[in-house]
């Protein structure tokens, strides 16, 4: 049981040096000793998670045994590649760029997705901005996790509509080609060198199901899967990840309309989510957590319910392939 008097956002503070050392030893032990691989491939997006994982891998294996793989496609933000290259240079890691646009076009990723968007908004044209969002402000609304499609035309006018099930499934299934194609390419580069693929999910993404099965959910080891997002930022600072990456708002960079991870999935800022979650895991009641964060017990309870629902409803994503029992 946590000491209630001391519970606050600071309760998420890590001993960054000790945690870094623990992860590095685990990476070496798993990749070299257990998997018998001689280095690491990491898909780098310019985001905080892949940046921290690359920095950890560079320390574990030496930068010469790490490949930082940039996997842009025609809808990626150019900023992602710029930051990823800056990261690779900062840690002396070889950057390799593989543009996956042609593969995605071959698979019909864009065409299948746009077909579904046009069924919702017939005026939508390829090149418009489009994104999927959840209702905002989880603290103040008890709404369920129903996705909305938001499109923005060239005139800047934004249109928003609840996604029917069939169109939701088609947009997600099509967009998931992106993550799965990236994973294919990561394994190509890993097998080419007898390296392991290092995954980049944090605890929020893994436990709440914010990943693609067979896409960014597939890897040989995930060294920051046990860390809350706010703790990943603490490691980033300790490891010397460039400030330009640390200050960038987390993005999905999956949809042509951009969109932050908060509006796509989490519905509240990370520092609040992580603190409430930690208190919940430590057995504090909602009123105790609320007092530490200047929230109401009802607001904290809504967030806790959302955590439990997401954990339950995404169990399928974390399930290993099954056989007949």
């Amino acid at each position: 049981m946590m000491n209630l008097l001391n519970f606050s956002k600071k309760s998420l503070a890590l001993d960054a040096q000790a945690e870094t050392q623990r992860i590095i030893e685990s990476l070496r032990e798993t990749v070299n000793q257990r998997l018998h691989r001689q280095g690491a491939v990491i898909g780098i997006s310019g985001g905080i998670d892949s940046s921290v994982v690359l920095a950890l891998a560079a320390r574990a294996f030496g930068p010469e045994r790490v490949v930082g793989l940039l996997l842009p496609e025609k809808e990626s933000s150019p900023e992602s590649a710029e930051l990823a290259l800056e990261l690779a240079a900062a840690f002396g890691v070889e950057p390799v760029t593989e543009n996956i646009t042609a593969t995605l076009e071959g698979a019909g990723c864009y065409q299948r997705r746009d077909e579904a968007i046009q069924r919702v908004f017939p005026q939508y044209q390829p090149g418009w901005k489009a994104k999927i969002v959840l209702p905002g402000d989880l603290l103040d609304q008890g709404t369920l996790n129903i996705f909305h499609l938001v499109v923005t035309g060239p005139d800047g006018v934004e249109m928003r509509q609840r996604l029917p099930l069939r169109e939701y499934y088609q947009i997600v299934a099509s967009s998931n080609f992106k993550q799965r194609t990236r994973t294919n390419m990561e394994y190509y580069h890993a097998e080419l060198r007898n390296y392991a693929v290092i995954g980049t999910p944090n605890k929020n993404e893994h436990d709440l199901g914010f990943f693609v099965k067979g896409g960014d959910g597939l890897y040989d080891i995930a060294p920051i899967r046990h860390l809350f997002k706010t703790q990943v930022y603490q490691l980033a600072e300790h490891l010397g990840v460039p400030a330009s990456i640390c200050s960038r708002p987390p993005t999905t960079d999956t949809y042509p309309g951009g969109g932050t991870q908060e509006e796509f999935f989490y519905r509240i800022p990370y520092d609040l989510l992580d603190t409430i979650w930690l208190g919940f895991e430590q057995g504090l009641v909602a009123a105790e957590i609320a007092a530490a964060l200047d929230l109401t017990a009802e607001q904290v309870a809504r967030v806790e319910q959302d955590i439990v629902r997401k954990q339950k409803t995404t169990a399928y994503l974390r399930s290993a392939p099954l056989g007949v029992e």
Partner: protein
Amino acid sequence: MDPVEEKISRYIADNILFSKHGYPHPLDASFLENGIIDSMNVLELVMFVEENYGFKVADEDIVPDNFDSVTLLAQFIRRKQALKV
């Protein structure tokens, strides 16, 4: 059982739970807390309501108070139908 509760529970049993023995939970059991349905199934239930009861479900009505058990959903449908008369 009221026909609205009957129709909802049969739909969930047949299409979401694939139950061979009807709806296996109390009618007031929370869908989400008991893992009976997930958020995609909520969307499916919204479509079920719209297709079967002839009204459009507003975004602000998609809340646990209306969609978190057979009983709550049936009450919501009856309230909306009463407004139409």
